[in-house]
C-alpha cells in the first residue's frame, strides 16, 4: 500500500526540482514573455478571433461608449463599430467595403476597402528600424476586468511619434486596455473594455447596421489609383523626421473630386503619415466653394483628428495636406518640407 505512494513521491521530487530550476533560468529573449512576442500574439488575436465587446473611448475627459463586433468566418472578415452614446454612427466592413453611417449628418460614406487591420488596430511587426525609435518593455503584470494581464509599453524615443501602453489578457492576448501616450509618457487617449466576449459563432444580425438609411445621402469614395497627374506626382517631402521613409506612392480620388490627388505614405515602421497633394485654386468671387467639387479654396492650418493631427498648406500652387496618428509637429514638419521636383530629381525615399 505504501510502496506506490513512495514511488510517486520519488518521481515527483526531481520534477519539482527541475521545475524550480527552469523557473530560475533567465528566459531567452524570444521566449513567451518577450514583450514583442506578446504584441504579435495581440495582433494575431485582433485579426483572427471572433469578439464582441463594449469599450469606453476616453480622450481628454470625454468618454464615449462603443461596441465592436469582429467575425472571421472562412477567412472573410466582417466588422462593425458602433457608437452607443447618441450620435448613432456606425462603421461596417464587409465584402471588401467600408460603410460609414453618419445619421447625424444624414450621410453614408462607402469606400472599397481590402480586409486590412481590424478596427481596433494592430501593431506592425517589429523590425530593427522600429527598435531604433521605440523602446519596448514589459511592465509588472496586473489584473484588469478580473483577468490577469500582461502590461507592455512601447515608448517613443523622441517627440515625433506617440507610444502605447497595452494591457493584454494573459489567456487570449486581447488588449483589454490601451493607452496612447506622448513622448513624455502622458496619456492622450485610452480604451477600456467593460465587456469582452469571444464567442465561437457570431450571427449575421450582430453585424448588420442598426441605422435606418431612408433619405440619407450616399457618398462613394473613389478607388485608389495608380497615377496622379505628372505635376502632382512630382511632389515629395524634402526632409523627414528621423526614421520616416516613403513606403507607398500612388493616387487617390478624395470624396467626389474629379481628379485624383497624389497620395504619399511615410512611415517609421509603426506610425504612419499620409501626404495628399491636390489641385488647388481659389474660388471665383461669389462662387460657392461647395458647388465646385474641385479645385477648392486654399486651406492653411492644423486640425486635431482623434489621436492624430492634420496639417494643410499651399506649396507652389498645390494644396498639400499631411495626416497621421503622430504629434502635430510631425505632420507640420512633413507638410512644410514638401516640394516640387523636376522629373529626374524625384527622391525615392
Amino acid at each position, binding site marked *: 500500500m505504501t510502496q506506490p505512494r513512495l514511488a510517486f513521491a520519488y518521481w515527483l521530487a526531481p520534477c519539482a526540482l527541475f521545475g524550480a530550476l527552469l523557473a530560475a533560468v533567465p528566459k531567452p529573449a524570444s521566449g513567451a514573455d518577450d514583450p514583442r512576442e506578446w504584441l504579435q500574439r495581440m495582433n494575431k488575436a485582433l485579426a483572427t478571433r471572433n469578439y464582441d465587446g463594449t469599450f469606453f*473611448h*476616453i*480622450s*481628454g*475627459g470625454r*468618454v464615449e*461608449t462603443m461596441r465592436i463586433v469582429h467575425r472571421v468566418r472562412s477567412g472573410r472578415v466582417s466588422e462593425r463599430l458602433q457608437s452607443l*452614446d447618441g*450620435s448613432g*454612427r456606425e*462603421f461596417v466592413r464587409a465584402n471588401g467595403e467600408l460603410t460609414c453611417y453618419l445619421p447625424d449628418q444624414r450621410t453614408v*460614406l462607402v*469606400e472599397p476597402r*481590402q480586409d486590412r*487591420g481590424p*478596427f481596433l*488596430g*494592430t*501593431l*506592425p511587426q517589429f523590425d530593427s528600424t522600429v527598435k531604433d525609435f521605440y523602446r519596448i518593455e514589459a511592465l509588472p503584470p*496586473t489584473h*484588469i*476586468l478580473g483577468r490577469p494581464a500582461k502590461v507592455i509599453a512601447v515608448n517613443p524615443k*523622441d*517627440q515625433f511619434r*506617440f507610444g502605447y501602453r497595452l494591457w493584454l489578457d494573459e489567456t487570449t492576448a486581447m488588449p483589454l*486596455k*490601451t493607452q*496612447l501616450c*506622448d513622448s*513624455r*509618457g*502622458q*496619456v492622450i*487617449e485610452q480604451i*477600456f473594455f*467593460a465587456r469582452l466576449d469571444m464567442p465561437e459563432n457570431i450571427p449575421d444580425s450582430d453585424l448588420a447596421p442598426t441605422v435606418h438609411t431612408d433619405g440619407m445621402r450616399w457618398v462613394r*469614395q473613389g478607388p485608389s489609383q495608380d497615377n496622379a497627374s505628372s505635376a502632382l506626382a512630382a511632389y515629395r517631402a524634402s526632409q523627414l523626421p528621423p526614421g520616416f521613409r516613403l513606403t507607398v506612392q500612388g493616387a*487617390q480620388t*478624395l*470624396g467626389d473630386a474629379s481628379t485624383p490627388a497624389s497620395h504619399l*505614405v511615410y512611415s517609421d515602421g509603426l*506610425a504612419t503619415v*499620409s501626404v*495628399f497633394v491636390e489641385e488647388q485654386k481659389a474660388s471665383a468671387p461669389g462662387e460657392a466653394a461647395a458647388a465646385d467639387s474641385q479645385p*477648392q479654396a*486654399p*486651406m492653411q*492650418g*492644423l486640425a*486635431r*483628428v482623434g489621436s*492624430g493631427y*492634420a496639417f494643410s498648406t499651399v506649396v507652389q500652387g498645390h494644396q498639400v*495636406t499631411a*495626416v497621421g496618428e*503622430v504629434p*502635430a509637429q510631425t505632420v*507640420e*514638419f512633413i507638410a512644410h518640407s514638401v516640394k516640387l521636383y523636376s522629373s529626374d530629381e524625384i527622391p525615392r525615399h
Partner: protein
Amino acid sequence: MSEQIREQVSAFLDGELPDSETELLLKRLTRDGELRESFGRYALIGEALRGGGSQILTRGFASRVSLAIDGEPVQAAGREHTARPARWWRPLAGVTVAAGVATVAIVALQQRAISPSVNPAAPNTAQMAQNSALPLRASAGTQSPVRGGGAPREALSYTVPAASADAPSAIAPARLTNYIFAHSKYSSGLGQRGMLADLLIEDDEPQLIPITRSAQPPPPAPDARVAP
C-alpha cells in the same frame, strides 16, 4: 456622482471591479450622460495622479470649455510658422470638478507644445535630434508637470488668442473626413483606431475643430494670464 459610484469608477479604472459590477456600471454609463462626463473627468484625474503628468486637450473638451467661456466655438486664427505655438485657455469657469481634485484636473489641461525646430527650412537631422532631446520649450517655460499632485498655481490660467480677420481657411471638415478615410487604409497601427473612433464621435460643435496659433503668441509671463 454618489460615493458608491465614485468607488465603483475608481475600482474599475484600477482594474479591480468585479465583472458583475462592471456590467452594471457600464449600463449606467450608457444611459447617463452626466455620469459619463464625471467618469471622464475622473479618468483624467486618475491618469494625472498616477502618471504624474498632464493630458493633452482634445477638441471636444476644448471646444466645450471655449463655449462655456465665450459662448462661441474656437475660432481660427492667423498663424506664423516661426512663432512659438500657443493655445491658451481662459480660466475654466465652466468646468466643475469634484472638490479636492480640481487643481489637478485643470493643470491636466496643457497647452500643446511644438518645438520651434519643426520648420524644415533650416534644420538638419542632427539639429532635430538635439532639439528632440530637450524638454519642449512651451511646457518648460510655462507649466511644470504635476508631481505627486503638487499643482503649480500659474498653470491654472489660460487665455484664448484673438481670431485674426484675414485668417486663411482652416481645413474643411468634409475634406478632413476624406483625408482620414484615405489615410486609414494605409495605417494599420493602433492609431488608426483613434482616428476612426474619432469619426464615430458626435460633437456638439463643428465636427473637426481647427487648432491654429496666433501670429503673435501671448507672452508666457505669469502676469499675462488671468487668475481663475
